[in-house]
């Protein structure tokens, strides 16, 4: 009976930490993929890289936007 309890606890711990890591690993992988896709997709319409001036303007705009 007592061994049963401990065994059940160990099982839960194993399954639990396993699932937490599998889940968060999957999330890391998916979000990394999506980040790359988004970045490629968003810069696709541009002809080449933005100029320094453009970068400065965008950064300022984003900063202003995020402050809201």
């Amino acid at each position, binding site marked *: 009976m*007592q061994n049963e309890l401990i065994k059940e*606890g160990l099982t839960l711990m194993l399954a639990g930490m396993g699932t937490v890591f599998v889940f*968060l690993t999957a999330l890391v992988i998916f979000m*990394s993929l999506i980040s790359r896709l988004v970045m490629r997709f968003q810069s696709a319409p541009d002809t080449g890289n933005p100029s320094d001036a453009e970068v400065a303007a965008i950064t300022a705009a984003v900063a202003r936007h995020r402050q809201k």
Partner: protein
Amino acid sequence: MSLIEQIWQNSGLYQMTGGQAVMLVICLLLLYLGIVRKFEPLLLVTIGFGGLLSNIPGVEIATGDGLLHLMYVFGIGTGAFPLIIFMGVGALTDFGPLLANPRTLFLGAAAQFGIFATLLGALGLTAMGIMDFSVREAAAIGIIGGADGPTAIYVAGKLAPNLLGAIAVAAYSYMALVPLIQPPIMKALTTAAEREIEMVQLREVSKAERIIFPLVLLLLVALLLPSAAPLIGMLAFGNLMRECGVVDRLSHTTQNALINTVTIFLGLAVGSKLSAEEFLIPSTLGILLLGIVAFAIGTASGVLMGKLMNLVSKQPINPLIGAAGVSAVPMAARVANKVGLDANPHNILLMHAMGPNVAGVIGSAIAAGIMIMFTS
């Protein structure tokens, strides 16, 4: 004569039990911690006052048709209040730092070890005959280590309603004590050189990524662990309202009137479980003890994972931010920042620590889903 006798026999002085008197003192202590020491005041003030109300003898407040009991039945028994709070947490949370550096999710994962170690500890105490916790109760106690109030209340409401009062009090009290509990553990497990590590600045995260994130989070839960879907789903919904930019009026209400109203009712409802006969039992002592162990183990696991990641990663990672993986948002991130500043006055870790910090919220909700799946 019989008139005065009737008033006297209905008075609190006549009817009060010793347990109720003790609980009134304990609840005043919770109010003191919330008001004077500013420990998680939103919850300790409401829970503490609810606890006072629940220990007034001879009147239905926390029982029967009393208001606090109705709040408990309709708000916590159904899971509605913690889920709505989680929606509000989603609407208040900026997942940007996490998206800028997704690997910090691993720190949030590691810190959940405190949950499962505590579960094992609770079962161990039972096996040794010191305590008498069922597996469901042990699972609910373990979640204290998630350092996330609504998750703990949600799980306790499902798996161990009889222990909900003690679990909620332990969760919020220790979340408030994070600045005392964590630093010694963090310093013991790291070298001065590790604590001084500076991290590269986080990249900007685009609006598209921010919008897609809650949807990916929900779909992954749907595919992998449906039992965590209520918690994660409401968190993702609140965050989608926040980030999508087209329902700002809903997001604003969620972040203010709605979460505030539910916080008041949740606190009072939790307080209704602080009645003497439910709270003054040996289990409560066990829960308070196991709770602090859970926090300590979670903190240590996060820091050790940080050390490991720093070893294998190309970019430097300061292991202190691993401690923020227990959640306790945003207190744990601030603690990581402060300990970092003590070691290196130019080292601003706050935004880097926010990543594991919010990852810890997701991690403990996933752990909660596991617990619910296996034990119900």
